[in-house]
């Protein structure tokens, strides 16, 4: 928000011989001002409950109550049961597949919207993307079970052509991944669009002038420059899918179970301590992943700004 601030900071901090005037101090502080509301909101209403969640995972589950006596048994229980690890691994690859496919589906769409649609139509079209999502999740997914189901549109179409409905069309992993793509498409599309919208298309000119085909120009020049948007889209798709339980429940059948279902089973019976332990383990894994890939979260530094 401040034009001179980023410059002023190294200048102020860089030389100890230079005394900080109150103005400079104010300036240095003011750049963090934007955090204030978020800090208030998160500090009070997220971090505190978050601490409670962590505490839950170390407290004792007694019937339907969580009792505040410290224990490691929740974690021990998880580590002594191989099903959680194997389900988590399965979930990881399903999530990765769904995320990759979602982005693959959304990118050409966002590209089309940002590149070929005249500016005045972009927002209405974007709005149309999200509009179906104002209808309850449950209804939309149920609607898919009807479409994909044994007497649904697809199997009828197939039988018209004389094909039998493949058994994985519903109540299996492909169905879960398919519906997840549907559910998370708008998140990817909106995020990618927001990023592409400011892309300087003449960059593609320069790349193609230097001998890059359109696709190479897109890969080498456009994609790296919209990387923050891609990273964000991946976060918005990958992370919520990792915790999905409704879709696998509704369309996955017994073959499409994800880790979220196992966690949700605990919650259904109010087993919050155990549930919290599993959930936190996943959070830790994701955080480790994020820390590993944190460089890709920081694009500004790459550009030398």
């Amino acid at each position: 928000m401040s034009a001179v601030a980023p410059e002023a900071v190294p200048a102020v901090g860089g030389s100890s011989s230079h005394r900080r005037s109150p103005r400079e101090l104010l300036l240095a502080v003011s750049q963090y001002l934007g955090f204030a509301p978020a800090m208030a909101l998160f500090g009070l209403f997220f971090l505190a409950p978050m601490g409670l969640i962590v505490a839950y995972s170390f407290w004792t589950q007694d019937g339907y109550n969580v009792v505040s006596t410290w224990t490691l048994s929740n974690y021990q229980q998880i580590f002594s049961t191989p099903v959680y690890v194997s389900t988590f691994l399965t979930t990881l690859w399903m999530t990765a597949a769904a995320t990759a496919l979602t982005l693959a589906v959304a990118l050409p769409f966002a590209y089309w919207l940002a590149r070929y649609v005249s500016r005045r139509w972009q927002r209405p079209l974007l709005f149309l993307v999200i509009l179906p999502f104002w209808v309850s999740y449950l209804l939309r997914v149920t609607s898919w079970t009807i479409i994909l189901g044994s007497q649904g549109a697809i199997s009828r179409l197939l039988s018209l052509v004389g094909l039998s409905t493949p058994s994985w069309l519903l109540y299996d992993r492909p169905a879960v991944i398919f519906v997840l793509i549907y559910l998370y498409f708008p998140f990817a599309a909106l995020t990618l669009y927001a990023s592409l919208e400011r892309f300087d298309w003449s960059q593609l000119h320069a790349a193609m002038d230097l001998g890059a085909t359109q696709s190479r120009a897109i890969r080498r020049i456009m994609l790296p420059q919209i990387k923050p948007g891609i990273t964000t889209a991946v976060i918005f798709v990958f992370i919520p899918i990792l915790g999905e339980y409704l879709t696998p429940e509704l369309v996955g059948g017994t073959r499409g179970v994800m880790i979220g279902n196992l966690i949700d089973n605990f919650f259904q019976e109010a087993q919050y301590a155990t549930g919290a332990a599993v959930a936190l383990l996943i959070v830790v894994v994701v955080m480790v992943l994020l820390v590993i890939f944190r460089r890709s979260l920081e694009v500004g530094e790459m550009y030398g700004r």
Partner: protein
Amino acid sequence: MVTAEMASARPGAETPIPAIAFSGVRKEYGAHVAVERLDIEIQEGEFFCLLGPSGCGKTTTLNMIGGFAAATQGEIRIRGEIVNTTPPYKRKVNTVFQSYALFPHLTVSDNVGFGLKMAKVSRADAAGRVLEALKLVALDAFADRYPAQLSGGQQQRVAVARALVNRPAVLLLDEPLGSLDLKLRKRLQVELSQIQREVGTTFVFVTHDQGEAMAMADRIAVMNEGRVEQVGTAREIYSRPASRFVASFIGESNFIPIQGRDGQVVTAHAGIRLPAPGGAPAGNGTLMVRPEAVRLVPAGTDDPGLVGRVVKLSFLGSFTRASIACPEAEDPLIVDMSTELNAGIREDALVRLSWEDKAAVLFGEENH
């Protein structure tokens, strides 16, 4: 029919195929006509300059060669082949963009090496060529910086290096030296000319700097409002401008409204005889004479000939420029004098102006 075709085909086979040929090309942006009609041929190995005022369509013309703007009408040929729909990466043409269009996420050396990477040049080769190109533009010390960390002129030099390193068949340069200081510009002008001669590459060079155009180009096309007004060598254009626009755009010029009377040229206002080449126009017209062709001598009020008052003298380094108010011309006439020779001339003095007959150029009314 067949013979006619063959007859027309033959001369084509004999004269060399031009590197670039525009025939009847027009470009519109919505309702706005950026290029009205373009018919030019640029020969292989030529150093060709597009010169013209801001907004006249130079960049648009270059973009049509590079493949970044589709011609609305007409045909564009590169080495005889129609390229109206050929994508940029299939044209052996490289461009230095007016806005540089550097890749912000790549370092200077990666920017320069991009074309080589696309052409699958081996890493070691590429590194060598990149370094060479950066040396040429005196930026080898900046190889690892990002474009945002460079000054305006440095960015422009990166753009030049990025195009040059690919050794293209045709190199398009859109004001590539615009933000460089005179010294560096001169050096790069010389370097570019040398490279052009060595490699034999065809250069199409856009500039708004007539001095640059004259110093470097084999031929110059002077554009105005989407049309080419004159194509020719620097000398032709300077000494025999085809229109009043060309005359005024290239170099300084003085215009005096005249009439042809009895085969002689006289001023339109007071009917004073002026030195002029033969063939005075029948009706009204304009006489153009360059500032350096005019000689000044101190004069009295009633002297015959063209007399004016010096309103301003400005020292411009190698010469001094006098502005002379004269009732025969609308604008003050300007005269450049060798700094050493301006002894007698002072501001506010009366002077008589004269020039050799063949130094003047006459325009009829049709050349506005």
